[in-house]
């Protein structure tokens, strides 16, 4: 990846990140200082342990999955593996999904959609459910997420019936899995633009 251990962010890099993600200059520098404060090893990249050191993330039920989402997948001869380090570009690329949608960005062309468009936000969330990347949320994947969210007191059967009910509500093509389009349809009443945006204050 060729990421060098440079403490200062070069102007060209800031410009590139700005173009790719849409963040402003001050936001990028602010997030860079956060990045370096998390980077205990001081090698310009973050490892999983760096993330796991954040205390609130440890008690978050989705903590592990969120951390995983930062580490991009790579290919090594037909074997899919996850890289163990993420550099600042990757960090920003993932965070770009949560930038609020500006009015002037609402363009209709899906090919050039910015990272923080509604579809891309939903895709990010969908990928957190869909671990095996088959573009479907199966009953088991749903059960895993439910189990993480409700804790240990509830029985499997009960969770199973909730999962069944959920799939039944959402499934339109009868394959008892939730595809991405069904996912979008189910959330059409939810204000995703607001729910999945963080105000990065200046």
């Amino acid at each position, binding site marked *: 990846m060729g990421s060098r251990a440079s403490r200062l962010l070069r102007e060209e890099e800031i410009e590139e990140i700005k173009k790719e993600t849409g963040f402003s200059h001050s936001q990028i520098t602010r997030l860079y200082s956060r990045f370096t404060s998390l980077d205990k090893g001081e090698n310009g990249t973050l490892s999983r342990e760096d993330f796991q050191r954040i205390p609130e993330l440890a008690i978050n039920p989705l903590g592990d999955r969120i951390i995983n989402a930062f580490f991009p997948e790579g290919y090594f001869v037909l074997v899919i593996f996850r890289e163990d380090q993420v550099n600042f570009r990757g960090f920003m690329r993932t965070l770009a999904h949560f930038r609020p949608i500006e009015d002037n960005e609402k363009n209709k062309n899906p090919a050039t959609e910015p990272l923080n468009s509604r579809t891309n936000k939903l895709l990010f969330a969908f990928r957190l459910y869909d671990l095996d990347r088959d573009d479907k949320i199966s009953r088991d994947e749903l059960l895993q997420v439910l189990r993480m969210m409700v804790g240990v007191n509830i029985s499997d059967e009960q969770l199973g*019936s909730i999962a069944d009910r*959920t799939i039944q509500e959402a499934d339109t093509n009868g394959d008892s899995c939730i595809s991405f389009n069904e996912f979008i349809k189910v959330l059409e009443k939810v204000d995703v633009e607001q729910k999945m945006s963080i105000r990065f204050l200046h």
Partner: protein
Amino acid sequence: MPSRTVSHGASGRLRGLFLVMVLVFLEGSVFTVAVASSDQHSPITAHSGSHKATDHGSHNNTGKAFPVLDLNYENVRVPFEISLWVLLASLMKLGFHLVPHLSNIVPESCLLIVVGLLVGGIIRGTGETVPPVLDSKLFFYILLPPIILDAGYFLPIRPFMENLGTILIFAVVGTLWNAFFVGGLLYGVCQIGTESSSILSRIGLLQCLLFGSIISAVDPVAVLAVFEEIHINELLHILVFGESLLNDAVTVVLYHLFEEFSGIGSVTLLKGFLGVISFFVVALGGVLVGVLYGILAAFTSRFTSHTRVIEPLFVFLYSYMAYLSAEIFHLSGIMALIACGAVMRPYVEANISHKSHTTIKYFLKMWSSVSETLIFIFLGVATVAGPHDWNWTFVTVTVILCLVARVIGVVGLTFIINKFRIVKLTTKDQFIIAYGGLRGAIAFSLGFLLNKEHFPEREIFLTAIITVIFFTVFVQGMTIKPLVELLAVKKKQEAKRSINEEIHTQFLDHLLTGIEDICGHYGHHHWKDKLNRFNKKYVKKCLIAGERSKEPQLIAFYHKMEMKQAIQLVESGGGIKMPSAVPSTVSMQPSTKPAPERAIPQLSKNKEEEIRKILRTNLQRTRQRLRSYNRHTLVADPYEDGLSDLFLKKQKMFQIEKKVSFNLASPQSPDSVNLLDEFGQANQQEEEEQGLMMKPPSRPREAKKPSEEDEAKDQQRLMRCLSDPGPSADEDEDGAFLP
């Protein structure tokens, strides 16, 4: 045939309407007669009183006629008149909905004011003095609290909290702006525009400012009345409504401040500073009082499992006490009431029975509805009654200034607010917010409270207030509905929240909290998550009884949804009869086989499937719940008992049948022995469970015994009985249950 029924329906409605009108006229006349006779009766009753006294004394001597039929109106006068008013209000409400199309064009509030005007006119026309019905004490202590409690208890917390910043800015800054703008400019107009000898020029600056503060507050009653009927989207509704609730603190502070200043006649900087501080005290103090009483109510509801009938009473009492306690210290009673209702609701609802919940809901709706109706009628009557002093300049300038101030205020504040909001407010939104700033009875009552000595121009103020109220309610109230249609403002989405939305929303909450933590950004989600965690760890344990304290929110939501649907389906399917037919199929008597066909009402196959599915899935939960309660805390509620009874019976059925069908599917004979064991186990399990039930179901037990005796024959019988289309036709049931 169809045409006959249509005309029949129309004539039926007309007949109903006619009856209502007759009733109303009768009542109106009785009322005037009552008012009239109340004056004349006092001498008569006094006379009869003394008459009776002398009668007693001269009991032995004379043979005065014993009054068989006596008229004594004085004793019942006050309750009688109150009931008459309430009856009038309710009949009016009835009447409006009988007249076709009327409620679509004219909002109810306008019609009620007109009715009040009519009644006042009738009373005045008969020569009597109109009673001062909109007494401030009556208004603030009796009529207003139910409406506010209803609003606070059912306040949608999530959108309220998400938009709290916006709401606060509109409520505080907006109201302040309105008050000073209107008051200041009015003073200027009074001084400049009129001759120095006219009455207007004598109105001081402080009086004008006080008037401004009274007239500038958006009224929750009027907003509720009008916005209920136009069904706009949740965001706009909560913005205008939230503003009308929260500006009470500002109004209270300004009112007392200016009232005291005009009494003293001078104002110092220190006093101004104290005024600002008192604002915070009033607002936060009110909320604190409300929260305190809310926690008390939640705590009390934890122990009400043995006395379910008075549960609703606690909710009402604690809320009312919160309101009154806040009023003692001149804190904001409205904010106390809202805080109390909003805080106690999640805990109380987890503790109380289903029936109490329904009771609370319907009582609140009933009281608030009657209150609202009465308020508008009284406004009409007070308009006829009250001493008026019409001053063209003052009134017109007030109306214009109110409108202008509102528009400028909303536009200006939105400009600032939009810099901080993720979802910006569009021009359409701003228009609706500005247009929805209705004034109502609170302004009138505050004006009524003014002291005549300090404010010789009280009548002018009252007239102007009433004019503004009429203008906003009639003009703005009537035209807002067509305007909403015209501007194509987003409407409220009627569909209920699905389980998908609930799950995914929670999922997104966790996701966003995690991202915020990674960014080191202590935002909205971070604090909400912290609050939820605190709530789960400490508060719920104190305030919720028993095992429900550990129930995650998702599970509670799911249960509520399923229970509701199950009850609905069972009710629509013709009652409890259907499932009770099932145990009879297991009673092993061939003669009862036709019974299921007889007992099952005309349910479609699909409905049956759905009911079974839902009941089956609910059984899991009921089993869990029963396990954790002992028999002393189980609800002695016949409907609930019947339902859980049902569920248990059904579940036993499915368990047995599942095991049977599984075992009989494979032809090996050793399974028949296993079958016996299975039945034995099932029996034991059931007996252990029945210790938990207050009414142990006896039929399944009988059903089991014969099957133990003769397994081969019964297996066949069982298969036959259970091969009725319902249970065995469920493919996916096997998929879900088999290991």
